[in-house]
């Protein structure tokens, strides 16, 4: 099947198998390997990308479902060479260790702040519930979201 979608501001048209998952389309067809496969079952969130303004786990939708969509992956955030405030916050607050969950975690975190510009710790933690990090114990990630929210409020 042919799909056309806009990924990180660039339009792509590809002939693909209907069963191809969006994550594999992004990683293997478009060579955008920043989003990771952690579980293939939408339980870990490492593959989280933004599809038409919503944080989506790209391992559990087919690429054909993204036909016509606007997709943003981690690679799309610092496209101009300047880090996104959320990337900056994760860096400053040591919100990552091995880094594998981080792209998905950052994409999910951006959505949390969109929904809760001034989030409570509970809102942050509940918002992150779909994204697993095995390294940090989440505390520095929570700090990163608080810092990003504070920076946005300035």
């Amino acid at each position, binding site marked *: 099947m042919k799909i056309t979608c806009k990924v990180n501001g660039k339009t792509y048209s590809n002939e693909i198998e209907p069963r191809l998952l969006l994550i594999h389309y992004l990683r*293997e067809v478009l060579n955008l*390997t*920043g989003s990771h496969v952690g*579980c293939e079952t939408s339980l870990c969130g490492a593959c989280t990308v933004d599809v038409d303004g919503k944080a989506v786990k790209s391992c559990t939708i087919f690429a054909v479902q993204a036909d016509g969509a606007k997709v943003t992956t981690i690679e799309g955030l610092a496209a101009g060479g300047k880090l996104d405030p959320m990337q900056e916050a994760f860096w400053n607050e*040591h919100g990552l260790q091995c880094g594998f*969950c981080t792209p998905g975690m950052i994409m999910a975190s951006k959505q949390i702040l969109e929904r809760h510009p001034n989030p409570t710790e509970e809102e942050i933690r*509940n918002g992150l519930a779909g*994204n697993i990090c095995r390294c940090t114990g989440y505390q520095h990630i929570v700090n990163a979201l608080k810092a990003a929210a504070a920076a946005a409020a300035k």
Partner: protein
Amino acid sequence: MATTIVEVQKEKQVGKRLRRREDPRLITGTATYVDDIQMEGMQYAAILRSPHAAAKIRSIDTKQAEQAPGVIAVYIGKDTEKVGAVPCGSSLPGLRVPHHNILAMNRVYFVGHPVAVVVAENRYLAQDAADLIEVDYAPTAAVAEPEKALASGAPAVHPEWPDNISFTYHQDGGDIDKAFAQAEVVVKQRITSQRLIPMAMETRGVVADFRAADRQLHLYTSTQIPHLVRTLVASMLSLDENRVRVITPEVGGGFGSKLNVYAEEALMGFIAQKTGKPVKWIESRRENFLCTIHGRGHVDYYELAAKRDGTILGIKLKIIQDVGSYLQLLTPAIPTLSVLMMPGIYNIPSIRADIVGVFTNCMPTDAYRGAGRPEATHGIERMVDILADELHVDPAEIRLKNFVANDKFPYATATGLIYDSGNYAAPLKKALDMVDYKKLRQEQAEARKQGKWIGIGISTYGEICAIGPSPATPAGGWESATVKVEPSGKVTIMTGACPHGQGEETTFAQIAADELGVSVDDVLVVRGDTAVVQYGIGTFGSRGTAIGGTAVYYALQDLKEKIKKFGAVLLEDEDVAMAGGKVTSKKTGQSKSVPEIAAAAYRAMKLPPNTEPGLVSTHFWEPPNFTFPFGTHIVVTEIDGETGDIKIRRYIAVDDCGNQINPLIVAGQVHGGVAQGLGQSLWEQAVYDDNGQLLTGELTDYAVPRAHMMPWIEAEHTTTPSPVNPLGVKGVGEAGTIGCSPAVVNSVVDALSPLGVRHIDMPLTPEKIWKILSKGA
């Protein structure tokens, strides 16, 4: 231009909360993990695995798979007969090591046992074809629990050893019979440390690329030990070790699960050789649960002898270690670490330990964060609480009474260790102050009157880090570093450690910046490529900084001497001093910067006497001892009387890991360690049914901590430098995990103690607690 000799003391980098230098690539999605590697002509492998825990293989029919679209090759066990066995690196007298072929031969021994591999043009087609392989199994009886495996008449995991015993181990220290003869009180308890699944976020993955013309294998693998993988995989594949290049790109977490040599690493090398094209295998999460090593798996029987005044005289410990179906790299060594650590941080003059390693039809156990020490710490810390309960004394007081005193260091334990340094009361007192212990006990008493369940749990843990001196390890316990000052003055560190989240690209740069007086930004840390980095051991056992960092430190000392020599030539003064990134003549006050000296050292117009050109130093550092961090964790819990749900009101962690190179990174290690400790305490358990089926084989069933499940961790520190290394560091990678679980269980048992509860095995699920409450009421 001459500068004055007044030294410009640059701000020290060691001790600063620097944000990490490895992060830019990780936060922008530009880092390269194994699955991100693409190569021209890349093939994909899918592995067919046994659905049975124990079965004979009658036949395997691969015909349909071979003819499926896109399939290049299919291999089964007999094709790989010439490949060497998956190695066990540990040795114990009488150890029974089953032959571990990379694909099953005539039998399968656990669910997930690799039986066949399909190589195809892409991962979808490989999986499609794997589903077409027909295996005729004759299932046999399986056994999945170690105590059941020891019972007479149990199914034999390996028919040649019907007793299912892989090894036994015995150790005595002091005079244990006398200790028990003199005891005024003896407390006993069976304590389990359940099987766990390490669950690194990145599953394992391998890319193999064989260059036939020069007989070179490039193996990209997600591992903590690239050099050991090189040595062992080369041996398995009968390749020259110097023609195998192991590259570990980014590693997405390990926690011990990638401190191993796996069948798939050799299997991909085998396929690359056979097909002449690169091949990639990425473990699925399901495979990761089934086929990457598990942790813990202890059933422990404790007996503790004491006097009525609370003085502990001795401990007896019998460990039943579930080793699983095979012995992986360090499987038998892990419970011996539990024995070493069994006295905790108490002055316990006598011990007796027995281990029996038991085969089961399960995935092998091996090192998982803490590796033997969490089990030991959980045991001793639970036993001390049980003793306090028996004697009706406060659990903090009984600990203070039995701590190794500050003037006893270096302290020889009954298990044969020498504790380097300690001030065990300091973190306990700090944690008690933080939690306002006296007031909290009053509040607890009040709450009990109102029918509320509040618990206070203390764990005063000690652990072994910087693993370890070579005689104590199967493969050498040193670490290596090469430091180069390049002609431009930039500094390159090549470390034999293999950090994968621990932040040593930053902390090693901090060490170098201080020693050479250069900017942290001028330092690059390289690791994880055996063609680039000198032989090294790797990152595990909280050794990265304590051993790897020390190797860097000593390499820097050699370099500093050489820099001074070159500086002396340039300044025409033998009496020079090095500080602030400059070498200064004491006579003239003139100085030369490190880049100026580096340029001269490589230009080599004039060499100092007996000195080679260039500025490169390699140091292999053999530590004289382990290091022994310690600390206190206090957990305050509140239990919902109706549901059994446990709420952690406060989590206090006061850790002493010696000097800290980067406190921000230390905090991250503590938080992450505690998260895995809480996982074990409250939620996680690898459950096999009686047929050896893994019931918790996915993230739906295996409850790793998520953000909303975690309490806020109040992390503080005391600082007792280690005398073992010049940095005074001890290590912190595993402390959080080791200190955590007894504090949680002690807290919940304390909460439920009015019901006469003395011990509960982990994980403390609401169901388990609810049952206790229901029975009690």
